[in-house]
């Protein structure tokens, strides 16, 4: 794989970027590994969760039922008209992302983004294969097979969100799955292979819009992966003597007592400033003294996007912290304190290189994003809690506007459409409120008209009927009279819906 770097400037010395980023061990690697496992687990296992909804309804906990135009999420069922809830969730997602980015840079990119999760998986697989068979033709063949298998598993796994997941593999294997299922598997396999197996970090660097506007969200208070110039520069070989200010102030001893107890504040801070001045003035090719960076380039070779963090925050940095782990390993081996590269803020005045970054968590910008996220979440939550369980429309049939019956009474017809998502609703009762003497009948029912009409709802949970409302000649209005069709649960009498509509009578 060719090296990819966004930087036009050449690094201080040419760094050969490996085909596969090197492995690291440490705190961030552990977080990343657990998150990768967690995310993959969630993505792959969710379709297999079951949720009993009753007869005639899918038993899959999370199902995008496209033919039925509904989304099942555990106990909730969403219809296309519930789109505002989805919009609310998207706004929540965006605001939560902005919130996290303002506080801690691109942690989403580094740890949770599916692109990162799958890239991380593919990097791990590639490293494993190299460890097993070494480099060469067999490695390339094995790698191709592994990539395709993972991509295929992703394709099949995600198609399970759209169709009953447990039966899907069998259907696919025996050729009985619907054509669209094969197409979905094919497309998802293809995109997984292309984006996650083949393109990997190039997606983050060149395709993803997110890095482009992180600049608008980060500020001097954001926690981002930072190389401490003042401590690391000038770089030198390990044998080069350490800068006296670093050696003098006993970083080595500090490691054992921990970074919380710093040295006396004034002098190190002064020395820190001196050190930074030294760092920027002493970029000579072979300095006589060096900072803590021994230019081992581990931070570059472990980076999944191949950036050199020592040149400062840049677009390619996804904030995964793997370079921190790599550098800490090196520092430990050199018996130097950890944290040459660490999550840090730019602006905090520091007492020493070891003092933990002081983060102002209560910045107005972060608070505003957090508040917006909570508002959006509250809006969506309210929407979910108050989803209309029954949707009814009664559309007056205006051609003809009314029907004159042989006994002189007047009839109005309505196209009644009912759909519900309420467990255990089998029968509803309809009556006309505000229309004295009105008798109701359904087009399919061979029953005399009655004040309350009861109708069973089938397993498709919909009703498409012609509702006939009859008024005796005396009671019929001249012209329009408004009234309300009230839909109740047939057994309990609980009111399910009210549909305001009107009755039209012959003008007298």
């Amino acid at each position, binding site marked *: 794989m060719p090296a990819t770097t966004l930087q036009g400037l050449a690094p201080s010395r040419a760094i050969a970027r490996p085909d596969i980023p090197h492995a690291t061990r440490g705190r961030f690697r552990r977080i990343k590994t657990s998150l990768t496992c967690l995310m993959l687990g969630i993505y792959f296992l969710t379709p297999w969760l079951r949720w009993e909804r009753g007869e005639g309804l899918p038993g899959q906990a999370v199902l995008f039922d496209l033919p039925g135009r509904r989304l099942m999420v555990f106990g909730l069922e969403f219809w296309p008209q519930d789109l505002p809830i989805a919009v609310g969730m998207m706004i929540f997602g965006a605001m939560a992302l902005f919130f996290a980015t303002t506080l801690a840079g691109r942690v989403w990119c580094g740890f949770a983004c599916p692109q990162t999760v799958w890239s991380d998986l593919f990097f791990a697989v590639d490293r494993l294969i190299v460890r097993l068979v070494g480099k060469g033709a067999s490695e390339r063949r094995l790698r191709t097979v592994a990539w395709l298998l993972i991509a295929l598993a992703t394709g099949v796994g995600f198609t399970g969100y759209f169709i009953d997941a447990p039966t899907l593999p069998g259907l696919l294997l025996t050729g009985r799955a619907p054509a669209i299922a094969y197409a979905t598997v094919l497309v998802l396999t293809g995109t997984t292979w292309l984006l996650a197996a083949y393109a990997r970090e190039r997606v983050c660097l060149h395709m993803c819009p997110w890095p482009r506007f992180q600049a608008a969200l980060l500020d001097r208070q954001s926690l981002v992966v930072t190389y401490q110039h003042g401590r690391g520069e000038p770089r030198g070989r390990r044998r080069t003597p350490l800068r006296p200010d670093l050696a003098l102030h006993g970083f080595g001893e500090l490691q054992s007592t921990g970074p919380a107890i710093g040295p006396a504040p004034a002098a190190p801070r002064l020395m820190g400033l001196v050190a930074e001045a030294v760092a920027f003035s002493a970029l000579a090719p072979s300095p006589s003294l060096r900072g803590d960076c021994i230019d081992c380039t581990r931070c570059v070779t472990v980076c999944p996007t191949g950036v050199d963090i020592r040149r400062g925050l840049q677009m390619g940095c996804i904030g995964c912290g793997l370079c921190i782990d790599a550098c800490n390993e090196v520092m430990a081996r050199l018996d130097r304190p950890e944290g040459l590269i660490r999550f840090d803020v730019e602006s905090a005045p520091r007492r020493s290189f070891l003092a933990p970054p002081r983060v102002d968590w209560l910045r107005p910008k972060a608070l505003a994003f957090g508040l917006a996220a909570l508002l959006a979440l509250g809006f969506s939550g309210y929407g979910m809690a108050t989803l209309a369980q029954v949707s009814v429309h009664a559309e007056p*049939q*205006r*051609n*003809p506007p009314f*029907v*004159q*019956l*042989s*006994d*002189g009474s007047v*009839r109005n*017809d309505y196209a009644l459409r009912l759909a519900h998502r309420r467990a255990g609703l089998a029968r509803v009762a309809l009556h006309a409120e505000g229309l004295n003497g009105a008798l109701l009948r359904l*087009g*399919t029912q*061979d029953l005399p008209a009655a004040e309350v009409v009861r109708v069973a709802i*089938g397993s498709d949970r919909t009703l*498409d009927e*012609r509702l*006939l409302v009859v008024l005796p*000649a005396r009671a019929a209005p001249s012209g329009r009279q408004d009234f309300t069709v009230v839909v109740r649960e047939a057994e309990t009498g609980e009111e399910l819906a009210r549909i305001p509509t009107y009755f039209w009578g012959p003008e007298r």
Partner: protein
Amino acid sequence: MAAPERDPLTGYATTGHEWDGIKELTTPIPHWWVTVFLGSCLVALLYMWLFPSFATTSGVFKGTLGWTSEGQFAEEMAAGRAAQADWRHQLAQTPLDQVESHPDLRRFAIAGGRAAFNENCAPCHGVGAGGQIGQFPALVDDDWLWGGSLAAIQQTVRFGIRSGHEETRDSMMPAFGEMLSAAEIDSIADYVLTLSDPAAVVTRASLPGAELFAANCAACHGATGEGSRDFGAPRLDDAIWLYGGTRDAIRHQIATPRMGMMPAFAGKLDDDTIRMLALYVHSLGGGER
């Protein structure tokens, strides 16, 4: 015209054209553009060769594929029919009065019936089957001239009314204007008006028209004006008057009756469609067992 040369500043050749010392550079259209353009021309020519494309002195060049928009329409219609074949077969196999117990089949039939109704019946009976007073009967009410059961509706649609079809529903009301005097017609009209008035049940027997009605009208319209569907004789004891319920309109109808005519649809529409129509009309609110 000067000899073509290479422009030292841009590196392009000149065309040799020169005006007042200003020379024209050769900056040809990019190669890819020319290729695409020529390719498009080729596709256009191929298209002209395959499809009807230009008029000739004796008509139109029909293209080598033999494609026509009418042919495509017919194909698409046939494909639509083929897609319905299963449902139509089911409908043909199910007795009309049992379709109701198959909700999906009923939905299919009524949707098809609605389409066929709007195409064939709506010009007279109206898009909502509301009819037109004085012209065509409403099909949404509970008053039927020839019967409102599924079978009766199916027969009416199939063979029509006074349509000339050999199985048509047929009847004729005599023009009483030639048989009775104007005064007699007046008294019959007065009597008929009382038939739909429940308050007049007792008093109407003493009206002068009562005897005339019994002698001339009751044979078809019934002793109390209840009508007879065998003859398509309308009820006279209800609130629905196809040709108007005023005294004048009734007099007019007795003297010079108007009788509706409906064409037979057997032969025009296939049997499935007629069944769908019957189911649709029956579902409009007035359907009878």
